[in-house]
């Protein structure tokens, strides 16, 4: 009988195969994309600047744990954020001539441990002649320069700052410095009195952590804990083991929320930017010795910067609602769009509304992956996930202008579970700013990564990648008007931050709240009220680049209490800054409790009203046009000026 029906059976079998194939192909098999990566590299050295950072001659080996990571470029990030203009050099290029004219030299841990005797000698002489030297866990080759009285025992993990008496810290600095979760090890040391009676500036784990030593006319500051790695761990995350952020083997190659990287659970609701506070505590110390100016991190005398980001994984229409409001308020925003869900007309609409369009890198987290199907006609059994480069190209084609998007966020604010792979992928695609670090959960908010300011992530060899990470501090369900107002107010009054909020397109669908809309409604007014520059990520990147290209050096004459600042300011034309964005110059407001009494700009007397106070902080901000300028700042003599009498004017401090 089967023989009789064989052709029927063959026909039925073929139909069944076709049907199975058809249904199977409706859900094609997805081939994941291969992503290119790049490695970190040394940025070009800069020779000019009051502060010199010495860097290792060769990259370190790939770190297998945070303890092994070369965090020298953690210092680079700090100096770039705080000073803007500073010099860098390899250790092998160190010479007395190179040190001439510097005020401070910073020697990170790895450099300190490998410093040859000639270098130690040169730096010793530099200090004796009035320079300031920062040494990080210098080891035994530095002799009596540090003045550290070592204790027996092996280094223990540094946990937290236990006393700030030596810094004479007040207010928020005093309140929040003990909250900083430290990284790395602590060199044991014998107890010592706080400055000025003793050498201790701050205690860590109940023992001296940062000490100051008078050497000749200068100062040596010795870190017994790892400042560079602390800053790096705060900003880039504290991995658990094998430079990964999860102990679960199943998550080894997964994408995780970036909040999983935070240095400590206590950071999940951080109201203070702890990394920046620690930096400020250290660098302001240098100005205690002699006034050190710096490039203000914002155009002119703006108190901070404010950015709004709109991650848009699907339909752009909700984002257009937000952009229309921003346009009504004459404020720009940054929109991260999924390249496969954006039409050309929508891209044009977004740009007309003044938005800076970046890429939302789709990874299949909040929605299906972006794919390109492969097959014939309706039968498309395979789908290839679009790589980052593919998605960028697709987006670039749709954007009306010629510029290629340089800013991105990873879908869902996720990164690979390891130290730097996602950064290396983003950098390989020529992206220059990533905005994936931040709190997305309803009960997280604030400076999870110790700062709102952008920083350069470093790879496992300790080298910086050519991309900035710009964290956001509030997002959708955790965004409220009160929180935003509080952060902007604190930023204006004290922290001077880059406050980035994230208002996702799907916010009012997935986690709707009146708080989010109230915050967004008032965001631009609040930013303006608190003197924050409202800008986009591309504009901020361009401004930071101009700031880095600017040069600032200074000289101090203690006898005449005169600070002479030589500056070459670079500005940049930006849509979000009428008249161009030029960094201001931040000058210490007082010198040993005496205020500024005269200001001379390019040889002409200038009114002191040109100086804008940076809130209740320590500095005044001076705005100048782009180009070269010489600014002389005179501090008033104290009523008893005898302490200054007889100082040799020829002995010009640095």
């Amino acid at each position, binding site marked *: 009988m089967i023989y009789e029906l064989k052709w029927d059976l063959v026909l039925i079998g073929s139909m069944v195969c076709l049907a199975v194939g058809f249904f199977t192909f409706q859900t094609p098999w997805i081939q994941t994309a291969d992503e290119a990566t790049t490695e970190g590299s040394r940025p070009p050295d800069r020779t000019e600047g009051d502060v010199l950072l010495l860097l290792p001659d060769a990259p370190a080996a790939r770190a297998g744990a945070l303890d092994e990571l070369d965090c020298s470029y953690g210092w680079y990030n700090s100096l770039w954020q705080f000073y803007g203009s500073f010099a860098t050099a390899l250790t092998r290029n160190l010479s007395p001539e190179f040190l001439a004219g510097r005020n401070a030299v910073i020697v990170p841990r790895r450099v300190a441990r490998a410093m040859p005797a000639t270098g130690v000698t040169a730096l010793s002489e530099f200090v004796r002649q009035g320079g300031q030297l920062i040494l990080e866990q210098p080891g035994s080759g530095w002799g009596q320069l540090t003045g550290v009285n070592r204790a027996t025992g092996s280094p223990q993990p540094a946990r937290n700052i236990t006393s700030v008496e030596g810094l004479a810290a007040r207010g928020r600095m005093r309140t929040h410095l003990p909250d900083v979760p430290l990284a790395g090890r602590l060199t044991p040391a014998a107890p010592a009195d706080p400055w000025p009676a003793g050498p201790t500036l701050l205690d860590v784990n109940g023992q001296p952590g940062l000490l100051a030593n008078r050497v000749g006319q200068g100062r040596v500051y010795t870190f017994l804990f790892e400042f560079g790695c602390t800053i790096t761990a705060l900003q880039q995350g504290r991995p658990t083991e094998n430079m990964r952020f999860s102990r679960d083997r199943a998550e080894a190659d997964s994408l995780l929320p970036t909040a999983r990287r935070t240095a400590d659970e206590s950071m999940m609701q951080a109201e203070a930017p702890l990394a920046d506070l620690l930096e400020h505590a250290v660098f302001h110390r240098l100005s205690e010795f002699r006034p050190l100016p710096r490039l203000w991190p914002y155009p002119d005398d703006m108190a901070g910067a404010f950015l709004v980001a709109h991650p848009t994984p699907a339909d752009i229409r909700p984002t257009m609602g937000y952009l229309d409001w921003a346009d009504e308020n004459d404020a720009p925003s940054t929109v991260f769009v999924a390249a496969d869900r954006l039409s050309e007309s929508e891209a044009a609409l977004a740009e007309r509304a003044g938005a800076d369009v970046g890429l939302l890198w789709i990874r299949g987290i909040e929605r299906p992956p972006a794919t390109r199907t492969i097959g014939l006609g309706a039968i498309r059994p395979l789908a290839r996930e679009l790589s980052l480069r593919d998605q960028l190209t697709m987006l670039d084609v749709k954007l009306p202008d010629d510029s290629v998007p340089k800013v991105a966020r990873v879908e869902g604010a996720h990164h690979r579970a390891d130290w730097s792979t996602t950064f290396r992928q983003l950098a390989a695609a020529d992206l220059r700013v990533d905005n994936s670090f931040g709190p997305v959960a309803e009960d997280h908010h604030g400076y999870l990564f110790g700062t709102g300011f952008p920083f350069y992530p470093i790879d496992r060899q300790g080298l910086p990648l050519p991309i900035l990470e710009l964290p956001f501090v509030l997002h959708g369900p955790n965004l409220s008007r009160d929180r935003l107002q509080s952060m902007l107010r604190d930023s204006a009054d004290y922290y001077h931050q880059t406050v980035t909020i994230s208002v996702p397109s799907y916010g009012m669908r997935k986690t*709707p709240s009146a708080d989010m809309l109230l915050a967004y409604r008032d965001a631009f007014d609040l930013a303006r009220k608190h003197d924050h520059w409202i800008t986009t990520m591309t504009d901020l990147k361009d401004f930071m680049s101009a700031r880095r290209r600017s040069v600032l050096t200074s000289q101090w004459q203690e006898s005449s209490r005169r600070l002479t600042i030589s500056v070459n300011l670079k500005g940049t034309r930006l849509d979000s800054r009428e008249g161009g964005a030029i960094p201001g110059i931040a000058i210490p407001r007082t010198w040993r409790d005496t205020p500024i009494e005269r200001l001379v700009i390019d040889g002409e007397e200038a009114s002191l009203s040109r100086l804008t106070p940076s809130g209740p902080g320590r500095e005044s901000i001076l705005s100048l046009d782009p180009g070269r300028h010489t600014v002389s700042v005179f501090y008033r003599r104290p009523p008893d000026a005898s302490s200054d009498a007889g100082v040799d004017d020829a002995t010009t401090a640095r």
Partner: protein
Amino acid sequence: MVPSRRSRHDSATVWRLALWATVLTVAALLWLNNSPIHLSTETEQTHGEPSSSSTKSDVLTIIDWRAVYQSESTFRGRDWSAAWLGMLRQTLGPISVATPETVSADKLQSARVIVLTHSVADQVPEALLDRLRQRALDGAVIVVERPGGRLREAFSANGRAGIQTGRSFTHAEGLPDPYRSQLLEMPVETQYIGSTSPRENARTLLAIDGAPAVYAVPVGEGTVITVDFDIGEQLVGLQQGRPDEDFTVSDAATPTRSDAVPTVDSLMMDPAMAGSSVPWADLLERFIVHGVIGRHTPLAGLWGFPGGASGAVVPLHPDSRLGDGIGWMLDYENRKGATSTLLASIDSGLSAAEAAVVNRQGGHFGLLWRRHGTPAEFTEPWGLQGLKPIARPVTLGGQLERLGKTLPGGAPSTVKIAGRWWDRDWAAPFRQMAAHGVEHDVSLEPSKPGYAFGTGLPTPVLDSSGLPLDVYEWPVVVSSNHSDGPDLSDLLEESQKGHHQVLTWSLPPAGFADYPDISRFDAWIDSFGTIRDADHLITDIDSLATYRKKRRRSDITSRLLHDVAPPEGPGGKPAEGDGLLLRVSVETTSDRTSLTVPARVGTFAFRQARRRASRVGGELVAQDLTTQTETMAGYRLRRIPLDSGSTRIDVYYAPSED
């Protein structure tokens, strides 16, 4: 024996047929699994029932339910006498109701106002006629609607011009502007009885097309008022919408298509209703009660809103998408001391946990009904194991039961039909709601804001039989989705001034999901202040309905005494001349209600209100009461806050100095 070739061929054919039949059957089932056959379903319905609800009241309404039920089965021909009950309850609160079988001499004697609806007024027995005449002589007000026979001969005009079709109101006696102008602009679709000559001594109070439609005749100490037009037809047409004569509703957009599902807009009695800023049905009711009946005798009632508020805004939040996000607007409303009604569909994704949170916040839940037979119907596959070739709509009962499992309070009693759809059968949706215990419906949401159904107040609905269904309709007056028509602030202002409305406001919480319009959000935020400034509550259906139910179930009786010397007024000033005393007894379970009495009775003006003397420590003590002036559609009232329980109040009127 070897089978023959032919027999082998025949056998193969049979097997072939069986094989292919099986293949085709499996293919059909698989295809149906993806594209199931949609079945229709019959939803349980119930029909209107005579209402026996009655309280102690000055106002007695007599209705013959049998006559109503047996009236002609067309919209125009139907006896809509039950509309009187809704009108009087809405305006005054408690009323007494009787049928020809239950009306007693005591009831007639104790009522100061006796309303004979058309169901009764068509043929009144002689004995009752005599009693009515005597009651009028004694000072009662008798209202007769389109009387016939001896009743017409006794009190009304001759009616010889017969039944006329009315087009507009042309005169409203004593109604102050702007309400008079508003009333005259009302679309009219009703019939009146024309007469060849007016009744002697009659005073025309309302005219239709120039002819007297409501007129009053003094009889002894009292008055007989004839309502010679079909007020029920007019009110029901306004409030519930007007179908065709056979009670079918055609889709206004595609009137020639018999299978088109009509929308709510198709129900509107007149295109002029769309976007109207005047609640015409309420205006007519208040004119009849305060301007016609109240003109001839002071009426005591209970204020329609708790705490003496001028009105109420009832926010509705219908949702089928946000799931647990449905409560985000309620979160903010709570901060403003307000609540609202949330209507969830069964497929919205709402969880029991979130429902419990909303419940604790005071939110009231209802069902967003995805009604079968409309494009929004919800079907679910049905079959065996993994094969589900049939899709059946989930009925109203099924949806209520399913949502009830999620809600802490069980199945909800408030419903809104999704998508603004209705039914070709005018009353079918209401019958279905009544069959499943639904008490409140908010489906009448027009495409333009305003009083498209003549009212914002919750109105009892009637079946096409003329009998009441136990469902209240809360028409949506304000919608966030449309910009044409009166805006909220205008409606609030007019409500506070005199219309005193419930503004039901539909605000889908998903409205900001697709396009977060910050200006519209800002307007919503600002509205809380605007609503409070207009002295309106922001509340949910359940809370307001509970108050109004207690109001209806209260008792109010009063006596009007003449030639009473009023007490000294404020500042010790004695009144000149004798006045009136309205002695009121109220029994209520509501603790935030207020008694209302007219500010004037003829030439007498309100002077004082006192809680009746009670013995305190052996002495008789009367307590002066604080009163507020209110204006209801131009008629001035005095409002006296009450506590729950029994209260006896003396309201004094003194000769007016005006």
